[in-house]
């Protein structure tokens, strides 16, 4: 039993001895894909200015389009002029007629003679005896302060009206009008006889006279003739004297001036537009500025342009209040005419019919009612002129004939920047100049130069530099929408492109209305003139011979610490019928070449059939030992292409692709 126990203990001890378990480790080699990408023509030609087109069979054409010519014709029809310059002085100011009345009744006359009122009582019927000199040197005060203080006249007429309402004739009336202040005689009047119930008048010129506000009318003499029998004695019967001063022309006056129009100018103005003959302009933007300088008080102006309408309503400035100038600075009033139409055919219903480039304007100047006494003299004046600054939206009429030279214009091109050397023969390259004409006028285009150039060579386009291409005029529909015309000038461009140009040089001459005025009215919308661009369509049917392309790519690779990358494989499945010799240079952040990743690696062309169409892709794998790529910031890919088969034109189709995948061999240490 003891032996059994000892054996048991021994075996237990054997099992209980815990051997320290050391976990094994091992390295495994994995190869895994990392990234993949498919490159088609779209990727290889990543240029925002180049489009890719394909026909029904999928053959690729590159389409490059660039604006060729841009012409501006808005200056042709711009209206920028000064019109309606006018000056008005005081002599054009007017003054209203001054009318002053005086009434002398029968009763007043009878009462002046003692006891005569007893003889001839009011309401009686008596015979009036002859009374000589019933008035002798009687002075009648006339107060014109309501109208003026003083008036210095260069013209004027003073008219005296005497109305005899006495029941008997009066005779030998002599009246003298004098200034109260200086007793100057203004006028004298003599009326031998004024029968009863009649009115007599006489007028004299008072030009050159100075009138005071206070005048005396001295009745030198008035006889009363005897009545013809008994008459009714009515003391209210009177002799009414009316003094009227009219046709007043003032050289200087201190007066309360009434509202009055000083000037009225109705006239046409013709703009000088060279050979352009316009009958209507739509205004896109612009202003008419009224510039005024007035020394007259309470000046006012109204400026109308019936030729300028918006929604059928003519322009009127309304009352422009002109402040009295204290210096020589003009006051300006600006009016915006955006959206207006300007009729340039002149005044409506003018003699001789419609004209061109002409507007009709109406200008009125006023003095407003002064309200208080104001002094105006001959030096006071009213000066104004109008400035037109209009940018047309459109113009109709005849645009004239003109020759517009364009260029030499250099168009920079970077579509071939990625080609370093080698040659390519395009089987075909179609170039065209497409001109879209929005101008309603006949035009001609002469391409005086079209060439492509690089640093070493210049090639001219096969185009006749003397030929003038006819460009049809545009038209407008009933809604004023422009129907443009398209003119296309085609020529072969393969020779221009095969030098891999970095510039296109062009110059041209445009002829506006080369055949003169057409029976169809011209029109021009300055925003839509002429679009001319050069179009290049290159079917990718080429023969490339060591065509060397260079592309620089940005690379950012951080340290990958989790994995021990030993090799990198570039698996390239070439679906293009192009042999590619590849070289990749690695650069650091200072653009210094620090390594060559691959050198002269051949990537075989895809296999083609008898028609040179790809039937089988070719796979090439490039193996590269992995290194520390953290310093690499750029890679330069230099690829030399040769079409296969050699010396034959090969078409490139949209379904051709290069499938690039990058895989890596990774060694990983695993522990249990």
């Amino acid at each position, binding site marked *: *039993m003891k032996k*059994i126990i000892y*054996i*048991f203990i021994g*075996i*237990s001890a054997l*099992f209980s001895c815990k051997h320290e378990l*050391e*976990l*094994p*480790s*091992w390295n*495994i*080699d*994995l*190869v*895994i*894909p*990392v*990234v*993949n*990408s498919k*490159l088609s023509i779209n*990727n290889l030609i*990543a240029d925002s200015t180049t489009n890719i087109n394909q026909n029904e069979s999928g053959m690729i054409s590159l389409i490059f389009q660039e604006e060729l010519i841009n012409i501006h014709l808005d200056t042709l029809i711009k209206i920028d002029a000064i019109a309606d310059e006018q000056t008005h002085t005081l002599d054009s100011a007017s003054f209203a007629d001054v009318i002053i009345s005086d009434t002398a009744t029968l009763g007043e006359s009878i009462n002046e003679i003692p006891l005569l009122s007893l003889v001839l009582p009011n309401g009686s019927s008596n015979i009036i005896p002859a009374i000589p000199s019933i008035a002798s040197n009687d002075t009648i005060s006339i107060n014109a302060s309501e109208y003026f203080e003083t008036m210095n006249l260069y013209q004027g007429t003073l008219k005296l009206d005497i109305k005899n309402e006495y029941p008997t004739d009066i005779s030998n009336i002599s009246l003298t009008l004098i200034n109260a202040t200086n007793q100057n005689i203004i006028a004298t009047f003599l009326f031998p006889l004024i029968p009863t119930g009649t009115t007599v008048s006489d007028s004299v010129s008072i030009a050159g006279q100075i009138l005071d506000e206070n005048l005396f009318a001295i009745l030198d003499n008035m006889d009363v003739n005897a009545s013809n029998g008994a008459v009714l004695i009515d003391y209210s019967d009177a002799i009414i004297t009316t003094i009227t001063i009219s046709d007043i022309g003032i050289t200087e006056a201190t007066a309360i001036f009434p509202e009055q129009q000083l000037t009225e100018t109705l006239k046409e103005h013709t703009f000088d537009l060279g050979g352009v003959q316009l009958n209507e302009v739509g205004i896109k933007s612009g202003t008419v500025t009224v510039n005024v300088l007035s020394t007259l008080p309470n000046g006012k102006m109204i400026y109308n342009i019936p030729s300028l309408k918006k929604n059928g309503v003519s322009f009127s400035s309304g009352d422009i209040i002109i402040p009295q100038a204290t210096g020589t600075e003009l006051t300006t009033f600006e009016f915006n005419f955006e959206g207006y139409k300007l009729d340039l055919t002149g005044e409506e219903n003018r003699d001789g019919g419609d004209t061109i480039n002409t507007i009709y304007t109406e200008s009125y100047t006023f003095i407003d009612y002064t309200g208080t006494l104001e002094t105006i003299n001959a030096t006071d004046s009213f000066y104004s002129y109008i400035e037109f600054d209009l940018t047309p939206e459109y113009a109709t009429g005849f645009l004239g004939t003109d020759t517009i030279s364009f260029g030499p214009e250099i168009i920079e091109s970077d579509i071939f920047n990625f080609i370093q050397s080698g040659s390519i023969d395009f089987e075909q390259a179609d170039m065209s100049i497409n001109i879209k004409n929005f101008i309603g006028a006949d035009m001609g285009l002469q391409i005086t130069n079209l060439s492509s150039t690089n640093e070493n060579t210049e090639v001219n386009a096969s185009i006749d530099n003397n030929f003038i291409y006819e460009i049809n005029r545009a038209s407008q529909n009933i809604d004023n929408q422009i129907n443009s015309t398209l003119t296309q000038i085609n020529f072969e461009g393969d020779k221009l492109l095969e030098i891999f140009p970095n510039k296109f040089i062009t110059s041209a001459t445009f002829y506006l209305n080369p055949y003169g005025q057409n029976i169809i009215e011209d029109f021009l919308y300055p925003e839509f003139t002429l679009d001319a661009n050069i179009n290049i369509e290159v079917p990718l049917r080429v023969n490339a011979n060591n065509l060397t392309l260079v*592309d620089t*790519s*940005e*690379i*950012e*690779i*951080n340290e*990958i610490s989790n994995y021990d990358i030993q090799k990198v*494989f570039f*698996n390239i499945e070439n679906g293009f019928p192009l042999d590619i010799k590849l070289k990749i240079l690695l650069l650091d952040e200072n653009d210094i070449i620090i390594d060559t990743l691959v050198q002269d690696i051949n990537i075989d062309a895809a296999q083609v059939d008898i028609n040179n169409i790809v039937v089988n892709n070719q796979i090439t*794998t490039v*193996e590269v030992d992995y290194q520390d790529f953290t310093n690499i910031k750029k*890679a330069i*890919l230099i690829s030399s292409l040769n079409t296969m088969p050699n010396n034959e034109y090969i078409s490139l189709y949209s379904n051709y692709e290069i499938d*690039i*995948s*990058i*895989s*890596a*061999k990774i060694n*990983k240490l695993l522990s249990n």
Partner: protein
Amino acid sequence: MKKIILLLFVPLSIFSQATDNEIFWNSNFHFESNSINRNIISNLSDDNTITNQMIDNWLNSSTSEYNIIHSEILNGLDYKFFVKKMHFGLSISDNNILNTKFTDDLIKLAFKGNYFYQDQQLDFGGSNFRASRFQQYKFIFGKKFNNYIISSGISYLSGNHHLSYIINEGTLFTAPYGSHLDILYNMNAFVTDTSDFTLFANNGNGFAFDFSAEFKIQKSNILFSISDLGFINWNKSSVILDADSTFNFSGILIDDIFNFNDSILENTFITDLPNTKNNTFKSYIPATVNLTVNSTSKYKYFKNYSFGIIAKWYPYMDDTPLSFLKINQGFKQSNFKNLYFINSIIKTKYCDLIPKLSHGGYSKDTNLGLALAKGKKNKLILGTYNLLDLINNNDANSLSIYINLTKHF
């Protein structure tokens, strides 16, 4: 309280009537493989670094479609007592089971990587890995009838840890230079709660059943038994993975390869991982089906001999209801080829020799086992199922040692 006392009193009352008692200690270490041998294992443990040469040696030594490794470490204590014609037993054991089957291609992939197998498809479908640790508490009852003995047992299983990977289908094709990978997989994985790795953590509970019937026919005894037919239900903290996918990986597709930024590599590797979820799952423990015939003869070395057949029932997972198909599935998925054996007891002066010749099992090999037994009433048995492997040194691909200590009182 009374009930508890009554419950305790019942076995004690039975125990008090016991005429024969037996305590049985069993320690069993069993390692069996049809491919990996001692040389490979010693290289692994000695050098601490697995080289490609070692792997190539392993692959060259593999002769069958699948590599099987089975390992069991079992320590148990049984107590049995006999009352009249009945016997009762209690046992407690600590079980550690590892069972795995995998293809050569999985070895290549796991230990060498796919770099050396470009333009080839590696197939690791049908591979699986199962590892369980649990304690088993068993109660046995048996009764002897005239010519036969029937016994049955019921066990409570306390599951500690379980890990299983079942790859139903799995292939990996590596294109030349790794330009693309074609991956197909249909797999299940079950892992118990990983937050606690203590030896006796309770992450699941289960039951197992035993049944045996022994018949005496003339001079022979025929024993049929099914033991450890059971399962463990693991708790809902377990991680379950169910993945079935096919995809081709060619790397990250980028638009412009000429402007390369490695920030795209942050998502280079496969990120489309299958989804896992937390849930309960059921796993089975290996059940043993045994049909043995014990007999006697006149021949000196075969006076007492036995022969029989042992099968294992050990399905991968609880994916189908119990049916004949499930039963068949369990036998196939046990990775155990029916073991045919014959053994004899040769009595010598100093001890009994128990040689055993068998064919089948996990190694699917012919093995010669030998046990030494000493004692009658109190017996110590020390044995191995693979004597030749024990002395074969480098080419041995099985190793087993067991100790049984029995004391009668």
